[in-house]
């Protein structure tokens, strides 16, 4: 019989209600042999006690139910955001709180590049720097010859310098909606949406899909994840071409890879029949560390971009540019087919009309073909009201709510996009739980940074960037939030029998924390330091020794 290892911890929170707390856990062959007191665990046979976690707190490895592999690859560009971040190599990137700071960082990075090489930055967030809009003249002060592109944090906008404008021939004669102009008619340097950004992107070699599928990005994604205690993360929108799947199988299978990756196939890349066949074929390729077979359905746009489908009375202040990514009729046909084929769907719904139509489509699909324990999950689902949650509960749908949005965009939603009342019940975690809808919460990294403890903090406090509470009645407790980032998220991925709690038989996936998130003042939940993770019994410190 293989030898097992016993880890002693200051505290183990199992997230299993039968044995919620423990001090020792025994691991054998990558799985949890036993958890409990020292005596209980030792009763399985004597084994060396590993004391390295004796002053640490263990929770189940966190599960990020909605993020993107691009969160790793994006670090090949220069981070210029408003918040402190740490790159996959563990280098801190301090927050830049004004434009001059952004320019200074660009100058510094530029000084290390060949003179003509393009400089690409990401994470810029003008919401937090309202005094002045970044424009080409700012960036020209960094370089007049090197093309520079600063991607905004939402990835729907970028600001470029004159050298980049020249490269694509944008001038006062350019008649493209997304090429923003100054009062004098010249392009300001701000480019909005893909049509306007595409010419710059292809000339500067920026390709979102490659960022999410190149080997380095896949490795970096695991580093990003283990820094915040995550042992299982989705890649919730992927075309999963053969070559990419092979690369994922290869990399996730290596002994030094700490993350279980759960990609979801883009369902808009073919007919429902083709997608179903592809998903079923992919499912068979699943391994311990790569779980294939999920499908992602994009329905509408984003609320802050005014492209979400929002029900009457629509947007609060601002235009209604609501879009569908597929016609509602096609959504009905697609969900009907995938449901009939027994394929679990994750459906992107931001606005209330998108969630309403999607719930209705799933109701039809489930009426035609009952699918017990389907766990179809509405992703984001930011504007669902109580009635929609009641329907979701009745249909057995799960919700993965975008708690981070409250902090990053909550002020905007209250003041501009949807107004105070509807903003107060955005990402309604309390209502979801009260109505009996299985709940997960997420970051959508790289849109907002991956960090389940931060995401939990958002759901617990609902504080916006300006420090106001947005909808106090939708707050949830710390234990509820911690459940949502562990067993709750695992449930939405149909993996709750394997991960999400620390109990005998499950994978030995732990988040190793320096403090106890259950007992620290809840205001500091987001600040609990993460030492690293244990993934399938393998120990991975966040910062490699």
């Amino acid at each position, binding site marked *: 019989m293989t030898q097992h290892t016993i880890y002693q911890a200051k505290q183990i929170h199992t997230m299993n209600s039968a044995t919620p707390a423990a001090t020792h856990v025994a691991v054998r062959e990558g799985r949890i042999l036993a958890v409990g007191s020292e005596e209980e665990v030792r009763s399985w046979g004597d084994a060396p006690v590993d004391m390295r976690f004796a002053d640490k707190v263990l929770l189940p490895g966190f599960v990020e139910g909605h993020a993107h592999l691009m969160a790793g690859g994006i670090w090949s560009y220069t981070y210029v955001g408003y918040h402190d971040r740490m790159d996959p190599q563990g280098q801190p990137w301090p927050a830049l709180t004004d434009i001059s700071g952004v320019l200074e960082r660009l100058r510094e990075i530029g000084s290390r590049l060949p003179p003509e090489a393009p400089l690409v930055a990401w994470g810029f967030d003008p919401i937090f720097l309202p005094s002045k809009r970044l424009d080409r003249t700012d960036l020209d002060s960094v370089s007049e010859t090197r093309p520079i592109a600063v991607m905004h944090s939402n990835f729907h906008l970028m600001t470029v310098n004159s050298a980049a404008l020249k490269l694509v021939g944008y001038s006062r004669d350019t008649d*493209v909606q*997304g090429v923003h102009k100054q009062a004098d008619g010249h392009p300001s340097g701000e480019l909005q949406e893909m049509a*306007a950004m*595409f010419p710059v992107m292809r000339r500067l070699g920026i390709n979102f899909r490659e960022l999410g599928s190149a080997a380095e990005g896949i490795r970096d994604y695991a580093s990003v994840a283990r820094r915040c205690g995550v042992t299982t993360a989705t890649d919730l929108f992927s075309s999963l071409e053969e070559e990419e799947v092979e690369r994922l199988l290869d990399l996730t299978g290596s002994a030094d890879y700490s993350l279980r990756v759960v990609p979801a196939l883009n369902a808009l890349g073919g007919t429902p029949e083709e997608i179903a066949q592809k998903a079923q074929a992919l499912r068979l390729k699943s391994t311990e560390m790569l779980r294939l077979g999920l499908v992602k359905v994009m329905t509408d746009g984003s609320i802050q971009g005014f492209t979400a489908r929002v029900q009457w009375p629509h947007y609060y202040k601002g235009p209604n540019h609501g879009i569908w990514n597929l*016609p509602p009729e*096609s959504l009905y046909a697609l969900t009907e087919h995938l449901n009939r084929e027994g394929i679990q769907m994750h459906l992107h719904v931001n606005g209330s009309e998108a969630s309403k139509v999607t719930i209705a489509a799933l109701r039809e699909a489930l009426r035609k073909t009952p699918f017990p324990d389907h766990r179809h999950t509405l992703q984001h689902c930011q504007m669902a009201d109580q009635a929609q949650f009641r329907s979701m509960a009745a249909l057995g749908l799960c919700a993965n709510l975008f708690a981070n949005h409250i902090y990053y965009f909550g002020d905007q939603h209250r003041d501009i996009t949807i107004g105070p009342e509807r903003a107060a019940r955005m990402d309604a975690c309390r209502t979801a739980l009260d109505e009996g809808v299985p709940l997960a919460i997420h970051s959508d990294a790289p849109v907002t940074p991956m960090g389940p403890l931060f995401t939990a903090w958002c759901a617990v406090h609902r504080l916006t960037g300006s420090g106001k509470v947005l909808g106090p009645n939708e707050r949830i407790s710390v234990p509820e939030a911690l459940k949502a980032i562990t067993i709750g998220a695992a449930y939405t991925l149909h993996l709750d029998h394997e991960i999400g709690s620390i109990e005998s038989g499950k994978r030995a996936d732990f988040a190793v924390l320096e403090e106890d998130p259950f007992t620290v003042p809840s205001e500091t939940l987001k600040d609990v330091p993460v030492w690293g993770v244990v993934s399938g019994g393998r120990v991975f410190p966040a910062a490699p020794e």
Partner: protein
Amino acid sequence: MTPSVPLTIVAGYLGAGKTTLVNHLIQQVSGVRLAVLVNDFGALNIDAELIASRNSQTIQLENGCICCSLGGGLYDALDRLLTHPELPEGILIEASGVAEPDKLADIARAEPELSLDAVVCVVDAETVRERVKDPQVGSILRRQIQSADLLLLNKIDLVSNSEKEALECWISEQNPRASQAQAEQAQVPVEWVIGAHFEKEDPQTKHAPKFRILHEELFSRWHRMEEPSCTVAELRAALEHLPEGVHRLKGWIAGSSGVLEVQAVGARYEIRERPGARESSRLVAIGPSDVRFAERLDAWFDKWLAFGDQPG
């Protein structure tokens, strides 16, 4: 700089007949290396003997046409086409049923290696007026109609004559700029939809490809070769007064310091100045079936562009 590749967008709601149109086009194209980007690969219906080769992402046809799946994303597909050593002579995108063609047209306006040929919107003549009342997709449908240069009222055989008239009026109200054509089973000449095809035809020859005959009762052609010369302003004035109903017009006119290339689709036109001289000016147009079409265009030409008695 590389010459730009004209991009044609075929938009329209579900069931309007976009795929029927695309199937028709790719089999009828001749002499133009056309790349067609489609959402639904499985819906293509191509005669086996026309297929030269195929893989999961592309189908190469014997006639030079290549069909590409949009499964990997529109921008990736466009980037691949534009970086390929052998550039296509035209690109056609079959937009999804809820796409906003204006946004797709912006891609061609923004990318220097592309130029906008036309936004063609296929409309289901039978159901469109009911469809626009749909709270979930009505506004999108309206925007599709409003941003078109060319509107194809498809399935016209399914509506009565009185309905047809009401529909024409309603469509004109929605989009007075666009030229309208009508069809059954999306049977229209390739050159009507694809500028690159129209471009290829030599206006000097009155050659009648098979569609001419096929669609004679639905479309008229006109061409003119003379020796006028004019300024950009004069040409612009002429184009502002183009007779109603002209679907496409293209050609060149000798300018004071070079050649003025002109291309008009619906009410939208473009004039480009090129250095160099041509022997004579040539214009060719396609419009609705009308015995007086040539006459009307001749009258227009004589009024606005025949400057024989003026200093060149």
